[in-house]
């Protein structure tokens, strides 16, 4: 089922009576989520991603705009009638019920024509449990499960009623690093197997990039960029998106464009044809540096971290906006130890942004 958001807006009124203190949590969000895809809503905390999710679930009412499931306008439909599955950040498993009772609970709510016989409820609970591989834990209470197992129960409970849309709120944030990797693969697998349109919220860009078909990057309630993870990474439309995606993060410099050339400090480091002369902010991905003795960008070398296949070179530069520049280089090209390291740059890994508006300035890549 495709999910369509039209000018979705959520404004929280101010707590005090004073005007002008209201918070715009989500501002004019328009996006059509294609059927059967896994979408990651990504952004720092307070960017409105969870609010968006709760509006889609029906637990929060939008202040403006519309939500469509397929062709049906569900904006005014309450949560219980939308047929969504929602997995909460803390799972919200009922502590007094066993795993089986928890999973069966949504089925027992069905009324009228949808009502299922008991055997079928048990059968479907077992299918859902099998899908998330917890069918051997059916008689335990949530308190007797590990975090990862609780997470699976929560997913099974959301899936058992075969929702049109599956919503996950920070599904991995309560798991340890190892389990997080494993569980995110698991979520991807379950989503592929069931083909349910899935929207999940995360502040972890790596998590979002690794499993999503598409990501939506948000900041302060405003959608910044929507696209396939790789496209967004390779082609950020502003400095925020460029900074938010990628580990290690993008390196940011103060730069100047003069006569079609990009200057960082005094050195002309790259040809940027078609860009007017102006002050810019330069973003260079860690993998955009090529060690080159004749390279124009000369940095003070502080440290070389060997990571096996790659090395990470930490250096400093006076024009850099962050205290350290981090570049990822193939181990074979490891620069010689010394006081400085010189780089030439891969043009498609260099992004220019307006100094004031932080918007992307495009140049021709030869």
């Amino acid at each position, binding site marked *: 089922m495709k999910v369509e958001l039209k000018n979705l807006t959520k404004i929280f009124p101010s707590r005090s009576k004073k005007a002008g203190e209201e918070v715009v949590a989500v501002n004019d969000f328009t996006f059509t989520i294609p059927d059967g895809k896994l979408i990651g809503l990504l952004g720092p905390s307070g960017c409105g991603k969870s609010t968006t999710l709760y509006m889609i*679930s*029906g*637990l929060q009412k939008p202040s403006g705009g519309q939500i469509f499931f397929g062709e049906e306008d569900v904006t005014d439909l*309450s*949560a*219980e*009638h*939308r047929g*969504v*599955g*929602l997995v*909460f950040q*803390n799972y*919200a498993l*009922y*502590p*007094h*019920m066993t795993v089986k009772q928890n999973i069966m*609970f*949504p089925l027992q*709510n*069905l*009324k009228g024509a949808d009502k299922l016989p008991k055997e079928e409820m048990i059968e479907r609970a077992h299918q859902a449990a099998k899908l998330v591989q917890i069918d051997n834990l059916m008689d335990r209470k949530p308190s007797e499960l590990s975090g990862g197992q609780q997470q699976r129960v929560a997913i099974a*409970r959301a899936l058992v*009623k075969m929702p049109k849309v599956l919503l996950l709120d920070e599904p991995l944030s309560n798991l340890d690093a190892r389990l997080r990797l494993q569980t995110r693969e698991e979520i991807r697998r379950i989503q592929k197997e069931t083909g349910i349109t899935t929207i999940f919220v995360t502040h972890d860009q790596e998590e979002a990039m690794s499993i999503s078909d598409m990501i939506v990057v948000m900041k302060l309630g405003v959608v910044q960029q929507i696209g396939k993870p790789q496209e967004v990474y390779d082609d950020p439309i502003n400095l925020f998106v460029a900074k938010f995606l990628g580990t290690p993060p993008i390196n940011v410099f103060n730069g100047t464009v003069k006569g079609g050339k990009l200057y960082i400090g005094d050195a002309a480091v790259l040809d940027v044809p078609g860009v007017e002369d102006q002050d810019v902010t330069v973003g260079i991905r860690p993998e955009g540096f090529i060690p080159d003795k004749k390279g124009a960008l000369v940095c003070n070398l502080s440290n070389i971290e060997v990571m096996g296949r790659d090395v990470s070179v930490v250096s400093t530069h006076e024009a850099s906006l962050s205290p350290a520049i981090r570049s990822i280089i193939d181990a074979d090209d490891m620069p010689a130890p010394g006081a400085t390291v010189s780089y030439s740059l891969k043009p498609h890994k260099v992004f220019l942004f307006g100094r004031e508006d932080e918007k992307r300035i495009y140049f021709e890549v030869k």
Partner: protein
Amino acid sequence: MVESKHPWKAWIYLAPAIVLLLIFTVWPIVNTLRMAFLENYNIMAATVPGVTFNVGLGNFQQVIQYGGFLTCLGNTMLICFLTVPISTFLALIIAVCLNAIRPLQRMLQTIFFLPYVTNSIAIGMVFAAMFNMIGNNFGGEGELLITAGIINNIIGIFGVEPINWINVGSSYAANVFVMVVYIVWNALPFKILILLGGLQSVNKQYYDAAKVDGTSRVRTFWRITVPLLSPMIAYVVITGFIGGFKEYSSIVGIFGEDMGPTGDPRRLNTMVGFIYDALANHQGRASAAALILFGIIFVVTMINLWVSKKKTHY
């Protein structure tokens, strides 16, 4: 454990508390036991030199054979098994409703808590006035004037004849009704307070989850709210039963020290009332009754705990 060089110091620090406990808690308990098993014990007789009492179960026999005892036991049981379920259920409903409304919640909470801080004798007298119905012949020759309380006036609006709730010639059922209404009303605030506190500590996400899963309100109440509150409900029921067995002052408040409507004293007497009555001249019998009451409370509380262990979920 830290080994003290001067263990006697610890005893000195504890002494004030221990002395008070010994005098006002331990000794009365011991003394009650002693008096209960000394046949026909009474304090006046005990002061006469040379008088001794036989040790035995005579006091208990007297209690059970005493005419009013079964009435007292029956009334007490009736109070417990009527008022505790009713007040617990009502308190649960009110707490859920209070928890659901935002505006004026604080104020309503205070209003609902008021009976708790009001003197129960005073409340009883107000109830007595509310349920009053006095007929007299002073209005004129052969004319019967009826002075009715607010309850009779209210039911009068619906065309119901005034009911003699608590006055001379009133029925036992009417008496019990007033008593139950009063005790339930008096027991509500504490229960509401406990249950509301429990409700406010329940994670809201359970309700969001239930909502997304399409759970009806009634089902949410029975399948989520009640189980999650079960520890508080168990607490409220257990303390409710104990309070019910010790009920005395509310009856005094409504019916006066005679523990019944004029003309039929002791009709609504309770276990504690029985003990009070015996206390003046038959301290041995009073002690035996107190022990019996203790035994009943003990057994009922054990049953309560056993049930709640099976039914509560934490």
